[in-house]
Structures are given as C-alpha cells and as structure tokens.
C-alpha cells in the first residue's frame, strides 16, 4: 500500500481494529473467568462486572500504541492466553 494511502487509512483501520479486538477480548475474558477456582455464578458476575473495563482498556491501548503493528503486538499475548483458557479445555 502506498505510504500516502496508508497514512489516511490509518484512523479507519485503527478504529475497526479497536472495535473488533475490544469486542473479542471482552467476550473471551468474560468466558475465561469460568476457569477461576470459584463458584460459577461468582466467576460469571465478576467477569461481567469487569467486562466494560476490558473493552475500554483495549480501545485505549489500540490508540495509545505508536503504530497499528505495535497495537497488534501488544494484544497478541493476552489474546493467545484467553483463547487458550477458553478453548484449550480450561473452561
């Protein structure tokens, strides 16, 4: 992609990436809490109470990062961890 196009597409890409990653991380984290050694209803409610903080923090991070690439890199570890907990048999 030419640098000039990229330059102007960047806000749009960041916005789309922010919404998508925040949605997925919120969703996975609200399921991953079930792996905690707590009664399920306690874990479920804790996950829901914290969900909006996860969403907000993810969006802020995506715009905080210096580039889209570093925004992606920063989310890589939590994403892998959450996917492992959600789908790796932990829940």
């Amino acid at each position, binding site marked *: 992609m030419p640098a000039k196009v990229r330059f*102007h597409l960047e806000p749009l890409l960041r916005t789309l990436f922010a919404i998508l990653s925040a949605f997925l991380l919120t969703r996975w984290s*609200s399921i991953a809490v*079930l792996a905690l050694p707590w009664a399920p209803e306690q874990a*479920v409610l804790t996950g*829901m*109470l914290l969900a909006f903080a996860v969403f907000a923090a993810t969006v802020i991070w995506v715009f905080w990062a210096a580039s889209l690439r570093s925004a992606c890199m920063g989310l890589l570890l939590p994403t892998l961890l959450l996917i492992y907990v959600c789908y790796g048999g932990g829940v």
Partner: protein
Amino acid sequence: MIAPLGRHVRQRMAQLHRWTGVLLIWLLFVIFLTGTLSFFRQELTQWMQPERPQGRELAQPEAALEHALPYLWQHASAASHWTIVLPGERSGLLDVSWRGAEGRGQAYLHPDTGEGVQVRDTRGGEFFYRFHFQLHYLPVLTARYLVGIAAMMMLLALISGVLTHKKILRDFFTFRWGKGQRSWLDAHNGFSVLALPFHLMITYTGLVTLMTLYVPWGMDKAFPEQEQRQQLIGEIFAFMPSTPSSGQVAALTSVPALVEQARASWQGAHVGRVQIAHPGDLSAKVLVEAQTGQADRLGISGHPPFMLFDGVTGELLKAKASRPAYDAYGTLLGLHLGRFADWPGRWLYALLGAAGCGMLATGMLLWTSKRRRKPGHSRVGLWLVERLNVATLAGFPVAVVALFWLNRLLPVEMTARAQWEIHGLFLVWLGMGIHALLRPLQSGWREQLGLAGLLLLGLPVLNLLTTDRGFPASLAAGDGVFIGFDLLSVLLALLMFRCARRRRGV
C-alpha cells in the same frame, strides 16, 4: 477526509476523545438530563399527581397493610397476583395493584383511612427514568443497545479526555472568561474534572445495570438453560416464581406476621413492597422486599433484601443471598441508582448529574466553535451541527418543561392522557428542531433558551392557579417537594435567561 492520526500519543488521545465524545453527544445529553431528573423520580411523580397527599415519614408504614389486604380481597380476590407498595417519605399513598386472567387493576389508597384517592393519569417521574435507558417510540432492546453504545463511547471519551491532559490540575484551576473558544475549553474542563469521579462512576455503573444484556457470554456459557439463568438472577433480585395455581383452596397466612419476621432480620428496616401470588390457594407465595433508602440499616446495595415465604404455612423459602460478587454487583448498582441517598444525598447526585450535562454541552460548543474558526471545513455540515446543538441543548430542556405544563393543562378526564403528555414533549421538541433550522443561529439560541426560561418561570404560577398546592400553601404545609420544585424552577429560569443573554458572538 479523516484527519491523519497524531504522531504523539497525546494527540491521538485527543482525537479519540473528540470522536467518541462528539458522535453520540446529543443522545448522551438527553440521557444525562433525564437520568439526572430520575434521582427525583418519586418526587416528580408527587408533583405531577398533586392529588396525592404530601409524603411524610411514617413510624409504621407496614400498618397500611390493614387497609391494603381487605381492599384486595374485596376487589381482586380472583386475581393471581397482588402487589402492595407501602407509603413512605417519598410517596404519600398506599399503592395496590393486581393482575390475573381477568386483566389488571390498580388503586391508590390513603394510608391513614384506606379510602381510595383519584390521581390524574400520568407517567410522572417514571417517564424520565425509563427514557434514560430505553428512550421512547423505539423497540426496547434496540434502544437499550443504542444507549449502551453511547455509554461506552462516553466512558472512552472520559478516559481519553483525562489522558489528553499533561497538567490536568493546572487546567482545572484555569478559567478565561469571555474568550470564546478558550472559555468553552475552560468551562468544559471545569465541569469534567470537578465531577470526574462521578462521571466515571455513573457511566461505568450505568453499563453494569444492563450487563446481562450487553455482555452475556460468560453467563450463557456457564448457565445455558434459561431456567438456570433465572435462578441466578433470583438469588439477588426479588422475583416471584411463576408457579401455577393448585386449584385447592387454603387460607392465606398472616401477611403482617411475615412482614414482622422480615423486618426483624433486617435490623428493623422498613418494608417497601409486598407481593402475593395465588392468594387463597394452596400454592400461595408471599414476597417481602425492604424499602430503599435506609442506608443506615441496609447499606447502599442496589438490590434491597427480600424474603420469599410459603403463603399457607408461612415457611421461609428463600432470602437474598450474600456472596462477594453479588455484593460487588449490588454496590455498583446501588451507586448508580442512588436510592440509598437521603434528600441531601439526592441533591448532591443531581448537582453532579447537572455538571455532567454541562460537560456535554460545553464539549459540543467547544467542538463547533473550533470548527467555525478553521476554513476548509464543510460549511453545510457545520451549519447543521450548530442547529442541532440548539435543538438539543436548548430545545430538549424546553420540551421537558413543556411536559410539566401539559401535566397541569391537559384535562384530567382526557383519554390516553399520560401518553399525550409524552407525545406533547416530543411534538414540542420537534417544533424546537424546526425552529432551530429556520432561525439564524444566535436568534435560535436566544429564543429557545429564553422560552425555556419563561416556561420555567411560569411553572410556579401555573401550579398556583391549577392546584391548591401553590407556593404559599406548600410553604405553610412544609411540603419539601412542592417548595423545592418551585424554587428550582425559578433558579433554572434565571440560569436559562443568563445563558440566553451570554449567547452572543461566541
């Protein structure tokens, strides 16, 4: 063309702040305004039903049960569900309602005499409360999602707004009067920072109130069956189980005795509501809930304690559970609703909510005033945004005050009266929108703010002429709700006039 992202992190936070803030700001403003009014939900209902006797603190609100139960036996013995809302400081009436195969009914009784009191048909403060999270005329779920998206954007705007500042404290203590855009910036910072903990709290806890709708995934995974989810919710919210009637006659146990039993386990806190399912049937159940607003005895939780009894044997079947996550949820909910607050607490809530309205209004004015100075921006877009500013920031308050006028002016015997009060609000708002589009900008501001001021100033007069609870009478009776309403109307009218005069050349 979208501006490129800033190179510096503070620039990017400012951009995020600007766009998350601006996109739904008109919606947020009406949500904040009606939400702020909702702290006075019962007081507004009292004002909008002047036939109600003055609310007062009762030593024994439970005594009113002796009027409620005979009334229900006499008028609704065939109903499958009774609800009794006991009177209190915030409501001067005993409210009994019922539903069943033969339909629904409701009656207001005087708490001392048990006689029926006719009140005018109005949604009262309930309208503002419902509107602030599910709007009006829209499908409920759609509206709630829309409000949720707006609330999340508000949360993001608050966080990025804080992160934009290098020296938030110094900016907070700066105020430059009469400097156009600079003044809007300083006013915006003032409103925002002064009440920042409140803004963050009310936005986050607002999302929490509808979290089972917004983030249901963990719950759906752990409790896939609808029944299981209902059971979980029933641990903390007072829910009457929907068991069918047995068809076998059995005498209803003594409800006042159950009420006393509940009070004894709530440090003597008063009971606010009693529900009875299948009265006179073998499967009868009695659900007793504590009255809100007794923070000294019950804390601030948004889930008031409840007890569910067997309606024949009087056996305790269930009580509100207390576990860490339940209590955390109750606390966050309680902070949002503010029902625990006594009247000074409610005024503090309202004042902070008003600061929120100020933050949104000045934020929007700052946005337009910045764009007006820069050439090259879309003139048509700016023209429209400035008119919509008038229609929302001045026009919606006019419409709200018009609702109070209609409440006093529409004939009491009119059919669908409550609905027409609300249609009236939206028609006036539409009128303000058209007015804003047709008039020059400054005239639009001046005329609508001036109209809001005039209508507000007229409210005490209208109330004096149409009811027997005008200012002198309510002063003599020490009626805080009516005195407060009159004084606040005048105060807000002066504020509107002042805004109308200051809207010159900005």
